[in-house]
Structure formats: C-alpha cells, structure tokens
C-alpha cells in the first residue's frame, strides 16, 4: 500500500470505498462555515478522513461559554479567533491536508466569493440570517450544502441543493422554512444546548460530506433528519425530490450598528447612552446592570417606550439577541438611534 494511504487504511478497506474514494477525498474542497458546536466536530472528522482542502470560516473569537461543546478549543484560546485556532489544531491533526481560514464575517457582499472554489459547504452557523444567506448563495452557485442545527436536546440534519439525475435540484432550506422571525425562536444562549447533541449532529454533517464526495451511501437529499437526544429517537422526513422555490438573488445583509464596551462606559458616564437589557427575567435576576428591560420577543409590544431623542444600547449575554433587537427596531421604528453591545455582557466584563 502507498505510504500516504496507511493513515486511511481502515476506511479504504470499507466496501464501496477503496483507494479511488480516498483520492476523491484528497481532491475535495470543503468549506465549514461556523467553527462552533457543529463546526468543531464536523471539521475534526473531515480533517481526519483526509479532505484535501478544508476551509474554516468564522469571524468570532473563543469565549469561555463555548468550551462545553466546542471541543477544538482550550481555555488558553479564549479571545483568539476561532478560525485560526481551529486551522492550527486541525493542521497538527493531519499535516497532509491544506487548511484555509476565513475570518471575515460572511455577508451578502462576500459570500459568493468565499464559497467560490469549494465543492460543498457545511452550514454550522448559529443564526438564521447567515443560514439563509449561505443557503441562497449555495443555490445561486449550484453547490450542495450540508445543513445542521441544534437547540436544547434536538437537532436537524439535511443536504440541500443536490443535482438530481434529471438535472433539477433537490429541495433547499427555503422549501422547508421560507422565512423565519428570528426574534421568536430562542437560540442556544437562552435555551441551552446539550454538548453531545452538537457532537452527534456535527459528525452526521461530516458523514454526509464524506458520502457525497466519495459517492457512497445515500445522502439526505430531499429529506431531513430530526433527532432527539433525550429519547434517542430520530425520524427521517421526506420533503420531495425537487425544489419548489426560486432563488434569484441574495438578500442584502443587515448592517447592525454596534458599539464597544469602552464606548458604552463613557456614554453611560455622561448620560448620552441608555441601556436596554433584552435578556430573560432569570438572567436579569442573576446579574443586573440597569436600564430598560424587555425580553427579545417583548420588544415589539413595547415600541412606545422608545424616545426618538435618546440613543439606546441593547445588550444581552453575547450580542446575538441584542443584534436581533436592533434589527427589529430599525424595521419598526426607522430613525430611532439604537446600537447593539458587540460581544454582549462578556465583553463588558473582560475590560
């Protein structure tokens, strides 16, 4: 056996695999978007299996609350860029592959350029805006995308936009969920997530990539798998063979004005900025720095509390929910001055 293949001998031995499949992996270019709970295990197994070119896209830095499920990072990495730490670890794990980090935030301006050159995309993002953006960009570019999403004890996996034998494309994310109101779907920092679910779903995403690239097994095209880690029951739901949506252009990314912890502190000191806490009642009970308080899904019902002569700074634990709140306010009260505290309370405490 060729010396380079000894690392892969236990997968080359699989029925329907062989050295030809290993060469397909070696020549494949796979982009993992989001190096978080899903991206970490997916990237680990893609690197281990010998994907020739593995891109890791994430603009965020490692925070302490990531570590319970984002297994590529150590406490010593807190504050460093996830994409860079991940690429460094994965390169040690497999020096025989090429790793590429993408540290710019993915927006409608750059997404087509970032995914260009990759054969297949892994969606390990943590917000609806980037999910839709990636989905639409993959459809416009004619590339398959392996979707994964988790919340509390439940996860979803699917492969979108596969080319069928008749040349048409399999369903994509918009066939299932044409649009979502993100302010009404809690994310993991509110509702929590069990770390092993991230591992299971992330590994399932890597599994679909390997099947797609090596042309073994049946990928989850036209289907979605829904998994419950509490009962270990899963179901595969048939969506249909062909997409019924027509995606012709990207939605422009919303630009959310953010301010830093330092700017907030001087603005509070001279009373030019006004805080709005949009965390849950429970979070506020535990740690309260004052200001107005509405939970994210209550903001819409309290628009008359906002004064057009004031400047508001929305905050939550990470900056994710406060970003959604600012987006909502921009839509519902155009002209009101509102910022999101970038990095959330975490950034405030670091300074």
């Amino acid at each position, binding site marked *: 056996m060729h010396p380079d293949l000894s690392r892969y001998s236990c997968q080359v031995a699989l029925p329907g695999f062989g050295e030809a499949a290993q060469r397909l992996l070696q020549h494949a270019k796979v982009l993992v978007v989001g190096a978080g709970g899903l991206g970490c295990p997916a990237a680990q197994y893609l690197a281990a299996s010998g994907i020739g070119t593995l891109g890791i896209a994430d603009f965020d830095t490692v925070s302490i609350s990531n570590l319970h499920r984002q297994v590529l990072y150590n406490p010593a990495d807190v504050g460093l860029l996830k994409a860079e730490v991940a690429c460094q670890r994965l390169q040690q794990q497999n020096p025989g592959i090429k790793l590429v980090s993408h540290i710019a935030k993915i927006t409608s301006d750059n997404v087509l350029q970032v995914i260009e050159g990759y054969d297949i995309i892994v969606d390990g993002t943590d917000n609806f805006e980037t999910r839709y953006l990636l989905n639409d960009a993959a459809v416009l570019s004619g590339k398959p995308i392996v979707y994964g999403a988790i919340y509390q004890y439940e996860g979803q996996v699917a492969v979108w936009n596969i080319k069928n034998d008749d040349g048409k494309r399999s369903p994509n994310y918009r066939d299932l969920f044409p649009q979502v109101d993100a302010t009404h779907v809690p994310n993991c920092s509110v509702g929590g997530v069990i770390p092993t679910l991230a591992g299971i779903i992330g590994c399932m995403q890597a599994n679909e990539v390997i099947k797609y690239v090596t042309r073994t097994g049946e990928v989850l095209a036209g289907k979605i798998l*829904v998994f419950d880690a509490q009962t270990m029951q899963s179901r595969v739901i048939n969506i249909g063979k062909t997409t019924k949506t027509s995606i012709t252009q990207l939605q422009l990314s919303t630009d959310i004005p953010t301010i830093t912890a330092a700017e907030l502190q001087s603005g509070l000191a001279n009373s030019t900025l006004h805080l709005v806490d949009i965390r849950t009642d429970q979070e506020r009970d535990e740690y309260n720095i004052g200001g107005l308080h509405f939970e994210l899904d209550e903001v819409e019902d309290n628009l008359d509390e906002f004064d057009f002569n004031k400047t508001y700074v929305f905050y939550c634990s990470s900056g994710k929910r406060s970003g959604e709140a600012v987006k909502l306010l921009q839509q519902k009260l155009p002209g009101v001055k509102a910022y999101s505290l970038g990095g959330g309370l975490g950034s405030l405490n670091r300074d």
Partner: protein
Amino acid sequence: MEITVLAFGIAKDIFGGQLITVELGDSTATTADLKVSLEARYPKLKQLASYMVAVNNEYAEDGGVITELDEVAIIPPVSGG
C-alpha cells in the same frame, strides 16, 4: 375528528408539552385547516413565520388531507450551531 399532534423544538414550549390533541370538526380536514386551528389556539406559533408540518414522516403541503390515523408532527426552525 381528533388529531394527535407531536411537537418538536420551540413548539413543545408553545404547546406546553410534546403531545396535544386538536379537534378538527369533520373528517376531510387539510394541513391548512390544522394550521389555522393551531395558530388560533397558539398565536406564538404564527409568530415563527414558518414551521413544517409532517404527516407520516412526509412533508405536508397545505392542501394535503389529514385523517385520525395519521401521525402529525410540527417541526419549527432551529437556529443553534
């Protein structure tokens, strides 16, 4: 007729449990009828903007007919990663 509906994700919180029953009047109800009935009872479901209805593990279009024998699941979008 009475339909048993299985909830996933945030729908479990909205319904207050994993299983609820919905009374749909006659025996020729469609997925659309079920959605109208659910959204009337649980306004927060409508606020999600979209969610999937699966009948017997098949994606159910609005016009599809539902019978008492069917297994109906409500699967909302999930954002975490």
